[in-house]
């Protein structure tokens, strides 16, 4: 057991994976800790500290209401992280089911599902999410659901093409001849074989979700104030870009590094897989 863990670690021991893992772990810890604890109350205002620059007490400085930016960045990371996580969950799970059915059965069903998919795919995912939000109102739950639905088509498409490839292989015929029911063939026999592709598209999907969530919050339709969000902080910081540049800098860096960490992790995994 220990040996197999060591073997796995050795396999993934490359620059991209290591750095990506460290960055991602840092963000994960910040997100989890952010659920229970932030150095300062994220909504507490202090006029005396309005737009104060980074200092020991407030390492990222304070915003235009005198709130601690570090605490708000932590909360923003927490929100972005979990919204993105559930977005990808919804998108990939629904995508797997739709893509698998479409690719495995083919024929008319595939035709219908993929045309619906194409229609959804034709909308930029943020636009599609906007439509859903305008129908159901904003708020964290609705944003997550809207982004999740907007992410289904891209997953469905990838999963479908993988299932089409796998379904043509002899081992699938062999499983059918043994008497395996379709549902078993789809999820027990074929699914493990498309996991590598799925893992890398989930990683890319997560990054897109981070950016989409930040974009929506920037437009003011994501997470609602006074709750902190990285996108909204950026949009508010615009007015103080010269008087308090740290207000834009730190949320911006948080987004950049979150995406960078995941991209490197994905790169490292695919490098290890292709070796």
């Amino acid at each position, binding site marked *: 057991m220990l040996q197999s863990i060591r073997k796995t670690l050795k396999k993934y021991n490359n620059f991209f994976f290591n750095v990506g893992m460290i960055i991602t772990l840092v963000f994960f810890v910040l997100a989890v800790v952010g659920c229970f604890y932030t150095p300062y109350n994220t909504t507490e205002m202090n006029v005396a500290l309005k737009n104060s620059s980074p200092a020991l007490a407030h390492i990222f400085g304070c915003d235009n209401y005198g709130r601690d930016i570090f605490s708000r960045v932590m909360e923003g990371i927490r929100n972005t992280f979990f919204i993105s996580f559930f977005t990808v969950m919804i998108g990939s799970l629904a995508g797997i089911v739709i893509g698998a059915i479409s690719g495995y059965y083919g024929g008319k069903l595939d035709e219908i599902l993929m045309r619906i998919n194409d229609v959804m795919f034709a909308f930029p995912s943020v636009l599609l999410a906007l439509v859903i939000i305008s129908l159901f109102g904003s708020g964290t739950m609705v944003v997550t659901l809207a982004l999740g639905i907007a992410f289904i088509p891209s997953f469905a498409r990838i999963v479908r093409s993988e299932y089409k490839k796998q379904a043509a292989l002899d*081992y699938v*015929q062999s499983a*059918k*001849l*043994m008497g*395996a029911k379709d549902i078993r063939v789809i999820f027990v026999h074929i699914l*493990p074989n498309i996991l590598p592709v799925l893992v890398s598209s989930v990683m890319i999907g997560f990054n897109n979700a981070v950016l989409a969530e930040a974009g929506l919050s920037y437009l003011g339709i994501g997470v609602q104030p006074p709750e902190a969000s990285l996108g909204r902080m950026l949009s508010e910081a615009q007015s103080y870009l010269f008087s308090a540049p740290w207000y834009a800098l730190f949320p911006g860096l948080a987004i950049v590094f979150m995406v960078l960490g995941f991209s490197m992790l994905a790169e490292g995994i695919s490098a290890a897989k292709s070796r």
Partner: protein
Amino acid sequence: MSLGSVKASYIPDSPDILVSGREITVSFSDRNEKRTTVLDGLDFDIYRGEILGLAGESGSGKSTLAKTILGMVKYDSGRLYVGADKPQMIFQDPYSSLNPAKKISWIMQEPLRLGTNLDKNTRKQKVSEMLSSVGLSDEIGDHKPNELSGGQRQRVCIGTALMRNPELLIADEPVSALDVTVQAQVLELMKSLHKKHGFTMLFISHDLRTMYNFCDRIMILQKGKIVESGKPDEMYRNPKAEYTKLLLESAGISSGAV
């Protein structure tokens, strides 16, 4: 779609017949809706316990006939009797016929998981017995297919196909992807398992040399039609159809030669 259950659109007159077809016609339509006839009114019988060779070149319809018997392809017209429950198949390419994500032991247990109520330990016991009867060691079970050679994989495929003692085994060019010395070993294994288990085998090949010693009877298929059938020795010595003569000549087999 349920594959491989006993189905009959007619009952043959002799109880010795396991599979029988009368005027079986299969055609496919391509993208332009043009229909191509792949099997053109075939009459054939497969007798219980025999090894029937099915020879022909690409496009002769030999794989389609196998798929028709297995119920993977629908026939347009004719009558088909398949008296074997859950016939199994061994494929040509041992690299795509084993699930790359699963361990050998898991793959070989699958027929038992699906068709019996045996518990895990009994299943493992059966797999280990089967591994040894196809000439593989027990520890092969812990490996994944990509760690095995072509010959080992094909042995695993044969073992998996035999897990539930099928009455009919269809082998579609089972050795043509293997090295020559490995080919001989795998053929020998199939022959001895046939003797031991007494299943009926449909052996599809393009290699008339291999079929000579391996098959009890040979059917020559050309463009969806059976042009000749009979015992190998008689057929090779005295081929009746022009096409059979051409095939034998191409394989370097002329009367009396090696």
